[in-house]
């Protein structure tokens, strides 16, 4: 402690460098642990599997973590299966308390749900809550949100559904909140018998006769054969009445593929399951990317390594400064063990203080970090994690003592006490310089990569979607799940259209940039090749309201193309080319054969359509996906409503918010600018860029510490040379240039190592994008400039000291 206090600048640099590195390491590793522990709250989660399905009737349909609910019963009798359960999410509810309507994240549970998830009521009777028609269970936070207290057993919640009408339920149980790292989040649970649930839905949830999809879990014995269970479930689906009812022609078109593919996925891996797509029945669950997590762990390790190397570097320089003390101790007969103990104790003290700083930093940064990661990380700093941090600090302290102690062993008293200082070996000096170079290279590479991701995310967010989104707002009706025109929705749209702040209203099945209803169709000319294309369902005035103009022919006209799924079709230029037309103009007026499961699975599924025009490219998909052939059809029952502002967007928003409750008093309006919907595709990239930016800043700070130390060391080593140069007439500027050359050389060497690696990383990152920011590789130059600037700042003090060095020093060395 005395040593630390004796040199406060050194101590501050040491402690802050190591503390900041440890703090960031703790946060990132804590986050990785959080991700790996998804669903561990489920008892014996390793043996619980989710049943996934992929329907093959629609070409290109993705996998969903849902399967026909009839499989629950079918699975329960299979060998190796311990139990089965699940939930359905067909019935979104809103809760009304004191006139305030809010969404309730409710699940309709199937038998065995509470047992499978190990749910225990804090208060009340959970079995009662899930079986009675007038009861439900609330989590503590939902109870607090709705009533302001958790003491709500027996109280009544006014519930409203999209249909059929308002009802009420008694709170029969209070549950602890599910952990944040779960793929089964909920606020309220109830059984299918809840009085609000329509009878047919309740029956379907239990029997699955209509093959509706639900989320199903099966618990298996450790020795169970997953392939055998999967095969049995596949057979059950193949034999299901809904499957059997399919016409032979539809089955023939599958070309030997199953109508529905079934597979099992471990519940523990659900968080990282990237192949799962979302549909209106999906829970809003975050999914993680294992590659990104591995990258974050690599950054965490890199930052800790940088901080540690920086500390070792500093400690080694400290040994060099303490040569005389060490030499005197050796002369006085200090034993090796004593010397090791002394260094270990000093290093441990520094590591423990740095750990405390790191933990404090982690605690302070946690809210910002949680926001950056878009996760509830409030439980990150558990006693276990803090104990692990202290253990890491101790290990780090002992490890970092080794090298300085080894250098101390090498101090030769005869040399040092004779005034011939700097007994550090050439190898040791080179090693330290290499460490500095690596530090700076890592910071520079990271900075370049981060900036590349940031610029690409910005580029993608601001890339033209094919129309001007600035005056467009979008929202969903019927909770986004109930496709179909209703009097209420028609009345709402009419009312909105009459608002002066609103220039027009269009509807579509899906918003641009979102794919909750991924429909596709098989399209061909008579005698031409079949083309699988995206099938977008839009209202007749969609193109008009979005301000989209045709490439050829015309787009839909609300006066003539009013009939849903009528004869006219609009395709894009890609579709025209794929269908064999030499130019978009040639496709206009042509008749196409259209096959989509929406029109039925039998012969009636094949309809003829007439191409009325060619639409320009509209970005329904992210820039990571190649633009696809697309066919637009008129559809009047879309759940996504787009409003075009006649003037101020804020006025249009106010108008929607005023009109909405008059037609949907039981629903919560979720209104957002259209731009935000497709920009959400890049939210993960933007978050990653922000996180990497944090990492880069930390790495830069640590590198700056490293450069500061390097500059100090350089100037110290060059003192005699600088004095001699001054003696022979060097000006201050000459000395400044000399130091700048030394530090600049180190930075350029670091650039030679760090920037090619960053360039490779950028190449890999940009690869999936179909369009890239033109500034992508300029980030390498920018990172170099930034690093040079940081180096200049970090080295400024010692460069100045060197410039001010008086040549008389030469006579005293």
């Amino acid at each position, binding site marked *: 402690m005395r040593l630390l206090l004796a040199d406060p600048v050194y101590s501050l640099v040491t402690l802050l460098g190591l503390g900041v590195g440890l703090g960031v390491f703790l946060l990132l590793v804590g986050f990785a642990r959080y991700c790996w522990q998804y669903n561990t709250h489920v008892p014996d989660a390793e043996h619980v599997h989710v049943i996934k399905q992929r329907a093959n009737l629609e070409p290109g349909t993705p996998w969903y973590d849902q399967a026909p609910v009839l499989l629950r019963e079918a699975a329960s009798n299979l060998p190796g299966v311990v139990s089965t359960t699940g939930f359905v999410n067909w019935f979104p509810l809103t809760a009304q308390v004191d006139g305030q309507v809010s969404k309730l994240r409710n699940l309709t549970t199937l038998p065995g749900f509470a047992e499978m998830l190990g749910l225990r009521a804090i208060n009340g009777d959970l079995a009662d809550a899930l079986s009675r028609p007038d009861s439900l269970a609330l989590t503590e936070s939902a109870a607090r949100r709705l009533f302001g207290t958790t003491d709500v057993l027996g109280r009544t919640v006014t519930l409203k559904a999209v249909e059929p009408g308002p009802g009420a339920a008694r709170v029969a149980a209070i549950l602890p909140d599910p952990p944040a790292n779960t793929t089964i989040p909920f606020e309220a649970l109830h059984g299918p018998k809840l009085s609000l649930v329509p009878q047919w839905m309740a029956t379907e949830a239990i029997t699955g006769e209509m093959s509706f999809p639900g989320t199903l879990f099966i618990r298996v014995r450790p020795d169970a054969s997953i392939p055998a269970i999967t095969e049995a479930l596949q057979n059950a689906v193949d034999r299901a009445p809904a499957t059997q009812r399919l016409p032979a022609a539809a089955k023939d078109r599958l070309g030997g593929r199953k109508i529905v593919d079934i597979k099992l996925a471990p519940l523990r891996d659900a968080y990282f399951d990237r192949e799962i797509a979302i549909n209106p029945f999906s829970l809003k669950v975050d999914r993680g990317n294992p590659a990104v997590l591995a990258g974050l762990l690599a950054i965490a390790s890199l930052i800790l390594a940088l901080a540690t190397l920086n500390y070792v570097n500093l400690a080694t320089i400290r040994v060099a400064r303490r040569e005389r003390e060490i030499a005197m101790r050796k002369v006085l007969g200090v034993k090796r063990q004593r010397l090791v103990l002394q260094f270990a104790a000093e290093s441990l003290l520094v590591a423990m203080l740095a750990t405390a700083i790191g933990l404090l930093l982690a605690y302070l940064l946690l809210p910002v970090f949680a926001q950056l990661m878009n996760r509830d990380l409030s439980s990150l700093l558990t006693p276990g994690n803090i104990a692990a941090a202290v253990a890491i600090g101790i290990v780090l302290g002992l490890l970092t003592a080794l090298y300085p102690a080894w250098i101390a062993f090498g101090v030769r008293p005869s040399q040092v006490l004779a005034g011939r200082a700097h007994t550090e070996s050439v190898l040791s000096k080179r090693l330290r310089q290499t460490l500095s170079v690596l530090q700076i290279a890592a910071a520079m590479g990271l900075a370049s990569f981060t900036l590349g991701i940031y610029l690409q995310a910005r580029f993608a967010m601001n890339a033209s979607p094919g129309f001007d989104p600035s005056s467009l707002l979008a929202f969903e009706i019927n909770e986004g799940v109930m496709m179909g025109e209703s009097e209420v929705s028609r009345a709402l749209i009419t009312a909105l259209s009459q608002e002066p702040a609103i220039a027009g209203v269009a509807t579509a099945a899906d918003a641009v940039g979102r794919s909750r209803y991924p429909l596709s169709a098989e399209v061909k000319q008579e005698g031409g090749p079949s083309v699988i294309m995206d099938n977008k369902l839009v209202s007749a005035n969609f193109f008009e309201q979005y301000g989209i103009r045709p490439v050829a022919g015309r787009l839909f006209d609300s006066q003539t193309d009013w009939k849903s799924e009528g004869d006219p079709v609009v395709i894009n230029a890609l579709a025209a080319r794929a269908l064999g037309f030499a130019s978009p103009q040639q496709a206009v007026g042509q008749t196409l054969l259209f096959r989509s499961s929406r029109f039925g699975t039998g012969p009636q599924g094949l309809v003829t359509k007439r191409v009325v025009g060619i639409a320009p490219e509209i970005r329904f998909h992210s820039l990571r996906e190649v633009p696809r052939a697309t066919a637009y059809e008129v559809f009047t029952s879309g759940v996504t409503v787009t409003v075009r502002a006649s003037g101020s967007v804020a006025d249009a928003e106010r108008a929607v918010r005023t009109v909405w409750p008059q037609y949907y008093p039981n629903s919560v309006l979720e209104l957002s600018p259209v731009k935000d919907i497709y920009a959400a595709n890049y939210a993960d990239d933007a978050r990653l860029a922000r996180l990497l930016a944090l990492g880069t800043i930390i790495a830069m700070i640590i590198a700056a510490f490293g450069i500061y130390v390097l500059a100090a060391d350089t100037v110290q080593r060059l003192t*005699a*040379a600088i004095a001699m140069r001054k003696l022979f007439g060097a000006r201050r500027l000459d000395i400044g240039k000399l130091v700048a050359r030394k530090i600049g050389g180190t930075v350029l060497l670091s650039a030679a190592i760090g920037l090619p690696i960053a360039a490779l990383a950028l190449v890999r990152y940009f690869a999936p994008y179909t369009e890239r920011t033109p500034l992508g590789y300029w980030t390498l130059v920018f990172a170099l400039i930034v690093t040079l600037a940081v180096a200049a700042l970090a080295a400024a003090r010692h460069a100045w000291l060197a410039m001010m060095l008086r040549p008389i020093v030469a006579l005293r060395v």
Partner: protein
Amino acid sequence: MIKLVRTTKKFVGGEVVTTALNDISLEIAAGEYIAVTGPSGCGKSTLLSILGMLDSPDAGEYWFEGQDVAGWNEAKLNELRRGRVGFIFQNFNLIEELSVRENVELALEYSDVPARERRERVAQMLDHLGIGHRARHRPSQLSGGQQQRVAIARALVNRPAVLLADEPTGNLDSAHGEEVMRILQQINEAGTTIVMVTHSPAHAARAARTVGLIDGRIAGTAEAVAA
């Protein structure tokens, strides 16, 4: 050429004030060879640093080639010193990271001598001192005598008017020390003024004049007998 008039230099360390030079007056003519002797701490090195314009006196005058430089700032002193004063030291002060040739060239690096001429002059000087074959070596690869010859080459390569030598034989054995003394003698004979600090009476006797210092004062001067 050089004249000190009632020059004083003090060093303050906390509450302790040390008078390194106390009211010294000394005149050195161009081409002279002077030895400065005295016990440790008598002010020899301080005298040398003032003569070399590395430090300024606190009081008195210092005339160098007709200009009173006492009170000049570092930049002006630097300008005057460049090419006019050469230095050699007891511990050679060669830069280990540079080769022998680069060490010598260092003295010309901040002058206006073109690069080509610099290289020629360095090569000539190294050859003159018999170490041309060691031009590419690092200082640590040379013997002590060779290192001091490199230091002398560096001091002379810009053809200074005055050569200041601080214990030039202090780190050398007698044979190498004698060799250095012979070289200094030749340099002086070629017209360069030399001021040499030494503890060795024998080496001091090689100078034309000896100045004895005790406690920062000149204890007396002895006219040397020209050999």
